[in-house]
């Protein structure tokens, strides 16, 4: 998907604002928005890429102007409306018509469990990886219509396999509710091959799935 969220390499952005950098939450609303967005995902194990794709489909100017966890919260609410756990009318009116049929909210024990249990996105591979460390690869030129994790700045670019990472769930499929393991690689790109004005030897690394490459 091409959209305003794909910010890497976009020009015209000014200095990085470091306000509030030493507090975990920059406001009370920020803290509540964070907690709500993780707690309300609770019972449903939404694929992480359906969450990301739902966020990507926010009104573009909201995406670029609203606080980060505020966006998470709206995304979780949009997913809940989509899945029928709450209705758009209820959210807009602020009046609950009935308890959610599926209501079985995340408990404090669930929270403690999630805080100590990292999720794994690695799965059994189908077949052997096509590339080895040191191989040259070229990325897909035009991107994909739906959710995908090849940033626009690295499309149609030549890179080198830096590491093989096993088979991970393919985000493009995850955003459609499908579990598709695919070989994942870390790929190094010479910054000068990505951005015309670069005149140094810096390297940009991206973790990319095998189907994002067009040829060796």
């Amino acid at each position, binding site marked *: 998907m091409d959209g305003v969220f794909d910010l890497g390499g976009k020009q015209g*952005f*000014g200095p990085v604002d470091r306000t509030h950098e030493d507090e975990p939450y920059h406001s009370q609303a920020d803290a509540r928005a964070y907690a709500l967005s993780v707690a309300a995902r609770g019972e*449903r194990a939404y694929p992480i890429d359906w969450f990301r794709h739902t966020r990507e489909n926010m009104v573009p100017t909201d995406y670029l102007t609203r606080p980060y966890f505020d966006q998470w919260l709206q995304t979780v609410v949009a997913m809940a409306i989509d899945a029928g756990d709450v209705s758009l009318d209820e959210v807009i009116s602020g009046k609950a018509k009935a308890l959610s049929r599926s209501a079985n909210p995340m408990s404090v024990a669930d929270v403690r469990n999630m805080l100590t249990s990292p999720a794994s996105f690695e799965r059994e591979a189908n077949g052997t990886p096509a590339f080895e460390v040191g191989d040259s690869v070229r990325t897909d030129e035009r991107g994909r219509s739906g959710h995908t994790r090849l940033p626009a700045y690295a499309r149609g670019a030549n890179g080198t396999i830096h590491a093989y990472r096993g088979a991970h769930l393919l985000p493009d499929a995850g955003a459609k509710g499908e579990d598709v393991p695919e070989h994942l690689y870390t790929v190094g790109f010479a910054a000068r091959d990505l951005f015309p004005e670069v005149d140094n030897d810096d390297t940009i690394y991206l973790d990319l799935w095998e189907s994002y490459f067009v040829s060796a």
Partner: protein
Amino acid sequence: MEPSYDSEKVAEIHRHLHSHLPSEPALRVKALESLLVEKGLVDPAALDAWIEAYTEEIGPKRGAMVVARAWTDPDFKARLLADAGAAIDEMGFAGQASGHLQAVENTDAVHNLVVCTLCSCYPFAILGMAPPWYKANEYRARAVRDPRGVLAEFGVGIADAVDVRVWDSTAELRYMVVPQRPAGTDGLSVEALAALVTRNSMIGTHRDLTVSGA
């Protein structure tokens, strides 16, 4: 019901929410919290547990402990660089977004910088909440295109001879930078060393740690 996995449908829902929810962020959050609690979709005690976890318990001190141990324990450092997820699990720090953690090491010749250009992914379990600048459009746009310019704004000058490596963590791998141990710290304890490690040094927007911890 199951999710629709329909882009157009959720985009339309977002447009309705854009038009009908309060435009002020604090009011919007309050309105949604009331409804989600009333619907029984959220337990207020769980909200407090999430907030407290990242206020009281999980933060960059964890990453700093990992770095200090790596500085003082060569075997641990080797394990950390080979499989950071497993290494931090040894220390009881495994948690959110640490399942595929990678540690990348600064040297005299290399400086590492971490970003997520597509959505601000961050290793919560080991660094706590991401600072606002990490999630900001400016950092996401510029860190891959002009890392040296961004670093200069953070007061970090990088000599021409030093290679900058930018890790754009858009998949499920997360990255933490292992900064260089400052000179003059030979006699310090692991705890004292950990106190020198800044959060930004583990993201890569700080390079030269000092014994004064600045």
